[in-house]
């Protein structure tokens, strides 16, 4: 596609429910990243996929967070048993290998009530 697509754009969920956030990277981009941005804060790294290599999960804040990627396409970030502190914008980005510049999606705004 022309850009990185994320869905849904907004999600309101009740505390304790599970949520799935989707990211469609730019076609051909083998690298895919998830970041979290709390209100008025910087970007917090969550997880990084590069081709068929094992993902870098070093940024996942707890075992309630997990992510999958099918080949070099769609990725899903799952948050189980959501808590109010999970409220944030979740940003996905993709890039070509050996190219540092990311292209970000517009994010999913998650609100846990």
């Amino acid at each position, binding site marked *: 596609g022309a850009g*990185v697509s994320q869905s849904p754009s907004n999600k309101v969920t009740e505390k304790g429910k599970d949520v799935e956030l989707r990211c469609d990277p730019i076609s051909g981009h083998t690298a895919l*990243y998830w970041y979290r941005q709390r209100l008025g804060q*910087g*970007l917090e790294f969550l997880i990084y996929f590069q081709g068929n290599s094992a993902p870098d999960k070093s940024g996942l804040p707890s075992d309630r967070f997990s992510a999958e990627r099918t080949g070099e396409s769609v990725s899903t970030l799952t948050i189980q048993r959501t808590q109010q502190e999970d409220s944030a914008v979740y940003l996905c980005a993709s890039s070509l*290998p*050996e190219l*540092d*510049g*990311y292209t970000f999606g*517009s994010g999913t705004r998650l609100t846990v009530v």
Partner: protein
Amino acid sequence: QQQVKQSPQSLIVQKGGISIINCAYENTAFDYFPWYQQFPGKGPALLIAIRPDVSEKKEGRFTISFNKSAKQFSLHIMDSQPGDSATYFCAASASFQKLVFGTGTRLLVSP
């Protein structure tokens, strides 16, 4: 050592003035230093980037200055315009690995 420290947190500049945002890092393995611009409700967009083999890079009104010995780099926006009002993030990475972002600077350019 993975942190990138950014200042100021917010900045107000008059139209036509120069906006300056600074970042500092500790990890000497960092070899790529981009700046991202983010408008409300949008994802960050790459603005300009530099590698440590040069001390300055200019693209239009935007300039990155890089000081390798001090481990600092800065973004200068010349002739700042109200349309430049956004949040700016510096970042750094090593050998095509994940970017580490600064905490952001909210810039307001007054008309």
